[in-house]
């Protein structure tokens, strides 16, 4: 768990760099409240205290990275309560939850508080003069609007690769820099905390699917490189979809799971009502994990052929 927190550091630091003090506040509130709710629940339900396993801290950090940097404190606290209690503890705690707790909270907040959850402060340097934060659309939001209103991708601003690659865009505080998240993800793979199967199949299927659409009609579809670096894709592919508790157990299953996440993500991004589909895609695929596990059981030694 601690290794995953280390791996999230580059992404979190980029968020703090571009969004300043409010980002630190959101991260702190989320982590402290997640640990607090975990301890509280375990105390009330007379279970063994397990906050020293770092899993609540990790859920808090992941939730913070999924929130807009300007999220008010109460939003972060409600999100933490939902993540820990309804995302995890009601199922029996660590290891038993079917859905990724941080994503349960993100989607809960998105549906319950749509305005607060889609007010995106625009990036500025940490050292810039403190002014009232300017808000604006995320690149994917701008893309959706452009395609919807003008039937053309070229009307969208920020339609480049470098800004979202480095993190100079509006968005959830921990998902803006693809580069920082990829570095963290590679660290996890090298340290053998996660395997390559889910990130590669997830990112690969998004690239392939958006590539086909772009090839068919580049006027109304953004190119795949744009899709790869925007939204929650990198955070989702390396850190959320790879959550071991809520992903399949075999490598084959992980490949199926990753491809499924990729397809659902693109379907929502291109044809859905929301500009971004990573959270929904992972939650939907979380629900299919028992089925995938059933279908991808290893062949036992000496099975009758």
């Amino acid at each position, binding site marked *: 768990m601690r290794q995953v927190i280390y791996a999230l550091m580059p992404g979190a630091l980029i968020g703090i760099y571009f969004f300043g003090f409010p980002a630190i506040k959101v991260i702190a509130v989320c982590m402290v409240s997640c640990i607090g709710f975990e301890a509280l629940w375990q105390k009330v339900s007379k279970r063994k205290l*397990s906050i020293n*396993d770092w899993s609540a801290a990790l859920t808090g950090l992941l939730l913070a990275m999924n929130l807009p940097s300007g999220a008010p404190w109460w939003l972060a606290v409600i999100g933490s309560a939902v993540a820990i209690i309804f995302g995890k503890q009601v199922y029996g*705690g*660590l*290891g*038993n939850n079917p859905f990724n707790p941080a994503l349960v909270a993100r989607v809960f907040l998105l549906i319950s508080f749509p305005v607060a959850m889609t007010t995106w402060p625009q990036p500025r340097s940490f050292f810039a003069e403190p002014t009232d934060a300017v808000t604006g659309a995320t690149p994917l939001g701008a893309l959706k609007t452009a395609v919807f209103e003008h039937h053309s991708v070229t009307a969208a601003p920020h339609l480049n690769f470098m800004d979202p690659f480095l993190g100079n865009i509006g968005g959830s505080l921990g998902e803006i820099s693809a580069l920082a998240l990829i570095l963290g993800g590679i660290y996890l793979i090298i340290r053998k905390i996660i395997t390559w199967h889910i990130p590669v199949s997830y990112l690969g299927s998004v690239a392939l699917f958006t590539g086909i659409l772009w090839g068919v009609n580049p006027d109304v579809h953004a190119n795949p490189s744009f899709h790869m670096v925007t939204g929650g894709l990198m955070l989702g592919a390396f850190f959320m979809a790879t959550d*071991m*508790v809520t*992903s*399949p*157990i*075999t*490598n084959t299953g*992980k490949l199926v799971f990753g491809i499924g996440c990729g397809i659902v993500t693109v379907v929502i991004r291109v044809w859905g009502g929301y500009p971004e589909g990573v959270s929904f895609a992972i939650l939907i695929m979380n629900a299919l994990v028992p089925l995938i596990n059933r279908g991808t*059981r*290893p*062949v*036992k*030694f*000496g*099975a*009758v052929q």
Partner: protein
Amino acid sequence: MRSSFKGGVHPPEEKGLVKDSPVVDFPLSSRYYVLLQQHLGAPSRAIVKSGENVKKGQTLSEPMGFVSAPVHAPTSGTVKEITRMVHPVTGLLGPCIIIDADGKDEWLEGLPAVRDPFTMTHDDLMEAVRSAGVVGMGGATFPTHVKLSPPKGKTIDTFIVNGVECEPYLSSDHRLMLEEPDRVLNGARVAMKILGLEKAYLAIEANKPDAIRVMEQKAPPEIQVVSLKVKYPQGAEKQLIKALTDREVPSGGLPMDVGAVVQNAGTCAAIWDACAAGIPLIERITSITGRGIVQPKNVRVRVGTLLKEVIDFCGGVKDAAKLIFGGPMMGIAQFTSEIPIMKGTSGVLVLTEKDTNISEYSACISCGRCVEACPMGLIPSTLSKLGEKGQWQKAAENNLMDCIECGCCTYVCPARRPIVHFIKHLKALSRSAGAKSKGA
């Protein structure tokens, strides 16, 4: 080198402590503790009475059934009593014959009975193996005569001598093959004669190049020495057959179902002693090793010797944290050293605190590492969760009985869950439920 099997792990080999130590003889003890059940299958029943004088090699018990084996007196002396003592494998009290040695170490009259086994009939050879109480000495202790008598309808075409010794730390088979290659090879030839086979494999893991060299020089043309990739559990019977012949023993089946018979190198030596000299299985080589032993050694020791005496012979223990009968992967932790060496004791391990990881386990997070490691293609994480709840019926549906208890899953588990322990518990629950329903 042959291709191998799916799954498996690469634990530190740790063979360096004893692999180059020549076998030393353990001196005669004053008292021996011969357990009546030293084999898989039906127990054996004592046929001597307390106070009776016995000679070295004399039969002490009779097998109660076909899948069973007798035990023999390790030296001459008097039966002190027939009692119960801690059985290192079951952890329960098991019937045991205590013999006070008279110090003369006299053979039973007529032993050793030197003869040429290759002129003996099949039935005489089988009787020699059976009455000598030979069992699988790799640790599973399945009675050898049962393996050598396939039922009608099963054709055996492959005989394999198992000299793999993939369990970390242990070197008893390694030293045996280096120091007494002829006993192993001749025993293998006798087994081939019993099975009516012309060809055999002798499998050795590639980390024992000296043993491979010696065996290649000594082996007759009909025994092919094969060097196998180093991977645990390469020496497990089913994985070994798969690596050598690419045949998979069917789930719930036996090696003979795919025409194979596997005998451990030590067992082959015991077959030779039984057939060529009428000598029963009363001693074996065992590795007393681990950093918790002051002077790790390979010891030739009589079956029934108290482990405590053997450890003292090796200089005693230092910083000892854990005592294991067998190796670190499949061995069984012990709470006392007042237990006897058995026919299947290929080694005893004393680990220091630094070499052990005695900590609490945590919840399974379904990371899947155990699934990748399992050489039997099972899902150990599911079994371990069912084990926590004692749900053996559900575990049986999840291939509980296919588990060979090799320990790969427990080795890789990041939550340090004692998975094999849970599985053994489930198997015991399932067995006792089966026994109850039979009794009803």
